[in-house]
């Protein structure tokens, strides 16, 4: 008797959950609200950062997000998130989409869905030349600094098994700690690392980016699981940006020769959500 009651209860709960899921379509909700909320970092130039003059959040991912909002016909709103808070904030519905330098990897696929890959970067290590380190292997037993909750920490531990890692809330705090000499290396996505390196100005001569990548990171927008309509319109917008040549322009605007990063050309296309 007791078992049947439990089974009945479980069946009812399952039915309620199914009906609930079938009814909720995030894209409809977004259209109804008239606003789409993007979770961004706001501390990761040039993907998303605060423009010192206008105090607005700008960047490569911000421009992509605005294009998506325009396509849906709603206002784009940006909410700054800590690296470690990204996936939980998305899952709990406090943001609609993540545009937050988010690596697309297999582990995360069990938690959320990803758009087409919007950027590809390696992860590298910035060191002070005075440390005498010129190769990743020499980091063994040394202290390196990076951000909490990203793929940087697991990747450097995989690349250099007995490295000592200290993590901070933002990449910029980790970068500051490197400059102050609190560790020998600072791990980050190459694109952000080159940007930070450029910020050093004349002090650049005392720093070097180690040549070997510790990993290759495809970045993508993060979407809640089972939202095919929203994923459809996001991927559609991204394909549109690629075919119109707009994606190339965005790349050059934020990463091109006239920027601090001075990348000559794009080494990837926005055309796949497979990794």
């Amino acid at each position, binding site marked *: 008797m007791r078992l049947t009651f439990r089974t009945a209860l479980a069946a009812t709960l399952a039915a309620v959950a199914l009906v609930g899921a079938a009814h909720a379509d995030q894209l409809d909700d977004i259209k109804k609200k008239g606003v789409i909320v993007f979770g961004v970092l706001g501390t990761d130039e040039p993907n998303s950062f605060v423009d010192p003059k206008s105090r607005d959040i700008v960047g490569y991912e911000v421009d992509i997000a605005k294009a998506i909002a325009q396509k849906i016909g709603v206002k784009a709103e940006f909410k700054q998130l800590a690296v470690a808070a990204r996936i939980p904030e998305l899952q709990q519905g406090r943001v609609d989409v993540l545009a937050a330098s988010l690596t697309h990897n297999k582990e995360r696929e069990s938690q959320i869905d990803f758009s087409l890959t919007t950027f590809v970067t390696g992860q590298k290590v910035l060191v002070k030349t005075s440390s005498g380190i010129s190769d990743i292997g020499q980091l063994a037993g040394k202290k390196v*600094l990076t951000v*909490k909750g990203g793929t940087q*920490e697991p990747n450097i531990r995989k690349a250099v098994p007995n490295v000592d890692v*200290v993590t901070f809330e933002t990449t910029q705090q980790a970068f500051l*700690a490197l400059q102050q000499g609190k560790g020998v290396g600072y791990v980050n996505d190459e694109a952000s690392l080159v940007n930070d390196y450029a910020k050093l100005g004349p002090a650049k001569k005392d720093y070097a980016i180690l040549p070997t990548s510790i990993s290759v990171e495809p970045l993508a927008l993060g979407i809640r699981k089972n939202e095919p309509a929203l994923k459809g319109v996001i991927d559609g917008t991204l394909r549109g940006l690629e075919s119109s040549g707009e994606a190339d322009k965005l790349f050059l605007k934020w990463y091109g020769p006239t920027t601090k990063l001075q990348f000559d050309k794009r080494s990837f296309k926005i055309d796949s959500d497979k990794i």
Partner: protein
Amino acid sequence: MPHFDLALVLHGQYHDWLVAGLRLSLALAGTAFVCALPLAIVVALLRLAPNLALRTLGAAYVEGIRNVPLLAHLLFWYFGAPELLPDGLKQRLYAGNVEFICASIALTLYTAAYMAEDIRSGIRAIPVVQFEAGRALGFGFLGTMRRVILPQALRITVPPLVSQTLNLWKDTSIATVIGVAEMMYQAARVESASFRSAESFAFVSAAYLGVSLLITALGAWYHHRYPVRTA
């Protein structure tokens, strides 16, 4: 949502990370407590000193420290203050466990400000005639405090000091922002690696609660063993 599986944090790698975090949290709280208590007594005495300059110094310490958030203290002692040291000393500090040292300093100074106020209240609870009696016997200010007032006052202060110790214990969690691998830091690490926030934070909540109850119990035992003796 995957179902709640506590086994994940009860053995294996994630368990080891969390236990390492718990140990470091305890070490941090222990270090800060041992340093903060004597400092708090000194500050409380400063605030009651017969000399105006000393009283002002004590008051400035308490107000300057307790009116600034702990987060700001931690960031200052980690990112700010060490940069003012001479180069040689700075290199030596940075080569060691700078995160732990800076967090201990910040937590000690912060906790001592609150403890000092509680101890001052305890001292003021002792009838003033006791102080006068001490002076009449020929003890100086410090002698009277040490031999007559403080032994009684500290017993009165035990319950509020237990509260401050509980606060200190929980405040160690904020040290995660300067990269101290204490319990919250390790919980966040487990969460990032496994996406199992509920299990990892259930573990640390239970650990904070367990240690807190232990501190309370120790405080109650001490208070029972060394009761307040009214004059």
